[in-house]
């Protein structure tokens, strides 16, 4: 097919560079223009001359091959290192079946399911995703995604303020929370006129005494993490829940779906809200792309942010799925909506659901058990190295743990990087190490490198 040869006087086109993704032939353009009564495409633009752009961006069009080569070259500048990085974001192996199914055009190139009759498949997949999160958390309601754990936490805080019968303005978070997650929370809190304060931990567990000294009737939400950003499993969740309850504060727990496969259900320890990042299943590390998990108890249903898929019936009485309770959402409720979220992470939720389905209950539990044993084994092995002790916190750990080093952590981290391994630098003499099945083969080499560095 002959591509368009544009009239050089027509500023809307460059004769040599048509869009490869616009299928109009020159004959089409002519016929279409004639139907509109315009002589040129230029005429169809109602842009005043003063704000018309006649410059160039200086972006050169490239062939598909050239673009791929360029980007491959650029990304090749990411140094080849074995990552033992975690702190809330993890690299688990994603089975091939996840890619092959989720990349089907029907899933990848569809839109939000505003016409449910023609979107049953995606709606059912999202309903199943919600159901899996309900099973894992034990809570009654899960939405079908937020952006990531940090934004989900921000939404949790504003939800907690809305559902409270009396006003309040304080949110309490653990001192070990990632600074980035806290910063996102503060941006959400600011608009809702809430302030964020931290409570201390004691050897990796919540310092209950300190927390009870901080909590009062002005606290709308208490947030805790298990596993924490240091990888420790929090042992006092029920007590935190009781303390929150006594002050009418919502108790929000941060976790992830792999850990939840073995840990006590959040509902059973008294959580009112669960947030977390579910991309841990379904996506590789992907430079921090996320999937915000968000689940609440039934009483908060009408205040949930984001989309919900429910079942209904068709006119002929069969089960069907549809977006529901949309009067909470921004496109209907505008400034009184529970959130501004519109585009969410639906496709990542689909990938997570496929990943969970392909693991099954047995596979997910096995992955969780591995996350416990691999962390414990790696910590024990580092503990054997002269000049290192691990884990610093005398707790059970999930995937990751903190180690103390006799040399300053900055030097240790730099020298490990020179030897090919990336670990987190925490305190002056603390590093953090995360083990999953994607780097467990390299633990031997990491331990050997630490030994060399600490000599």
């Amino acid at each position: 097919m002959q591509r368009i040869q544009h009239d050089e006087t027509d500023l809307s086109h460059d004769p040599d560079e048509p869009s490869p993704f616009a299928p109009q032939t020159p004959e089409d353009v002519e016929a279409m223009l004639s139907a509109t009564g315009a002589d040129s495409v230029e005429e169809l633009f109602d842009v005043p001359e003063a704000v018309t752009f006649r410059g160039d961006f200086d972006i050169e069009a490239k062939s598909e091959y050239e673009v791929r080569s360029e980007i491959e070259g650029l990304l090749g500048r990411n140094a080849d290192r074995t990552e033992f990085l975690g702190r809330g974001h993890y690299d688990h192996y994603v089975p091939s079946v996840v890619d092959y199914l989720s990349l089907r055009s029907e899933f990848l190139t569809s839109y939000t399911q505003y016409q449910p009759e023609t979107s049953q498949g995606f709606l059912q997949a999202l309903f199943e995703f919600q159901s899996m999160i309900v099973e894992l958390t034990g809570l009654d309601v899960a939405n079908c995604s937020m952006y990531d754990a940090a934004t989900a936490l921000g939404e949790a805080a504003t939800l907690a303020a809305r559902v409270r019968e009396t006003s309040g303005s304080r949110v309490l978070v653990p001192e070990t929370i990632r600074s980035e997650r806290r910063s996102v929370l503060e941006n959400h809190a600011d608009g809702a006129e809430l302030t964020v304060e931290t409570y201390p931990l004691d050897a990796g567990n919540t310092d209950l005494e300190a927390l009870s000294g901080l909590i009062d009737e002005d606290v709308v939400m208490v947030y805790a993490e298990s596993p924490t950003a240091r990888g420790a499993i929090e042992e006092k969740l029920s007590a935190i829940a009781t303390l929150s309850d006594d002050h009418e504060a919502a108790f929000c727990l941060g976790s992830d779906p792999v850990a939840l496969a073995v840990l006590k259900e959040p509902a059973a320890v008294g959580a009112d809200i669960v947030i977390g990042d579910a991309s841990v299943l379904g996506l590789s590390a992907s430079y921090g792309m996320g999937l915000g998990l968000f689940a609440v108890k039934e009483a908060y249903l009408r205040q949930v942010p984001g989309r919900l898929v429910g079942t209904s019936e068709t006119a002929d009485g069969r089960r069907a799925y549809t977006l529901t309770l949309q009067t909470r959402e921004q496109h209907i409720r505008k400034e009184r909506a529970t959130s501004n979220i519109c585009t969410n992470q639906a496709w990542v939720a689909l990938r997570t659901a496929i990943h969970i389905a392909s693991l099954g209950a047995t596979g997910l539990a096995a992955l969780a058990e591995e996350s416990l044993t691999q962390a414990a084994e790696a910590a024990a092995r580092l503990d054997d190295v002269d000049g290192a002790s691990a884990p610093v916190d005398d707790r059970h750990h999930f995937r990751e743990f903190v180690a103390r080093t006799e040399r300053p952590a900055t030097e240790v981290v730099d020298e490990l990087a020179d030897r090919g391994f990336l670990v987190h630098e925490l305190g002056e003499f603390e590093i953090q190490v995360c083990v999953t099945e994607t780097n467990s083969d390299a633990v031997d080499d990491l331990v050997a490198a630490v030994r060399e560095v600490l000599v």
Partner: protein
Amino acid sequence: MNYRQASWDRKTDNSEEVNEPLLSEKRTQTVTYDVDLPDELVRDELTLPEPAEPEVASHYTRLSQMTYSVEHGPYPLGSCTMKYNPKFIEDVAALENGAIHPDRPDEYAQGTLAVLYGLQNYLAEIGGMETATLQPPAGAAGEFTGLLVARAYHRSNGEDGERREVIVPSSAHGTNFASAAMAGYDVVELPSDEDGRVPVDALEEAVYDSTAALMLTNPNTVGVFERDIEEIAEIVHDAGGLLYYDGANLNALLGRARPGDMGFDIMHYNVHKTFASPHGGGGPGAGPIGVVEELTEFLPDPHVRETEDGSFEFYEPAESIGKVHGFHGNWLVLLKTYAYISRLGDGGLKDTSAMAVLNANYLASQIDLDIPYGPFHHEFVASAGDVDAAEFAKGMLDEGVHPPTTKWPEIVDEALMTEPTEALSKDQLDVLAAAFAATDRKTTEELSETPTTTAAARIDQLSAARNPRLSWRDVEGHDE
């Protein structure tokens, strides 16, 4: 057109005929634990589906076949910009070196930083802005970020307490209102003029020293260009407010006009619309924001810059608002955007807006419904007249196409907001026009019996809301 969507009718053991059964209705497994943890930390059991891989593949393939997509046919959702998504961008996103951990130190992530820096510059050029932050994970998140930047700017001028209001036209996207409220602002709604534009005299009255910002899209939601944009910008700026550009309609202006040149101070880009990253059934997208020079110090932390030796580094802008995403936003979407823009170049970008506008105007010329506002650019809002627009939409489904966005914006009665994008051929536009005509010929009675060609017949959405059943625990007859 004989398109009929696949449906998978299967009898389950314990219920009536349903479409593809839930995974949990096929097989579940309950697991108990023997792990090295104190009992009180461990759950008693976990029940989840336990399909074998062939069952997983079959299940999701069937679900996909019950889902309408861009590659099935026209998907003319106004303001959503559903266009073809080039396949090669998926391969680019799958490159192994792109899948690194977000906590990597800068020196070991130079490739990723180079792409981010390149995209910052591309977007700044395209928007006529100084630079762009790539952190917001969606358009609405971009709006929220932009308003936080506006608020930080007013705070730095000692004016945060005074500037409490954000002005939003009545026809604006619902996200504008919600984002302003989330950022702690009061929303002042501005009615539309009889020609669908912002009335300058009403704006003059609404703007005063309490105005933090005016949020506007251009072309606006009826597809009409705000011709008075320079005057509007002057009014807002004279009062000390900022002008915010909602990028939802940027596809209409690519390479033709730039928000920065029109006087906008902050803008967001819906890269999944304008630059075609797949919508993925509702996301992920990405919503970078561009700002003029005097706002760059307020951008989210971190931002990327080039150092003297040509390497790239993250830094925290001096008066940064902090973070709006736990890490660096939706990286894979940003990578796809970079690839898409690189593929098109100047000419392709300009051709995109040209063909999008031509397609919308041609399609409108081929349908008989009333289109109250014009001249429009890439989208138009037709009125279904006496017919309920939602009913009209169900009728269109039976013509084998996806219907337009319905009942919005509210300034058009029974609105059918239509955006064909540049990616539809003339033949497909003719199919779409025929679908409009065929639906228009149907009686109310006939429409009430549609759709019949979709995987599911008409769904009772009211009862879904009255009696929410949101997980398989709530499904009647479901075997737990």
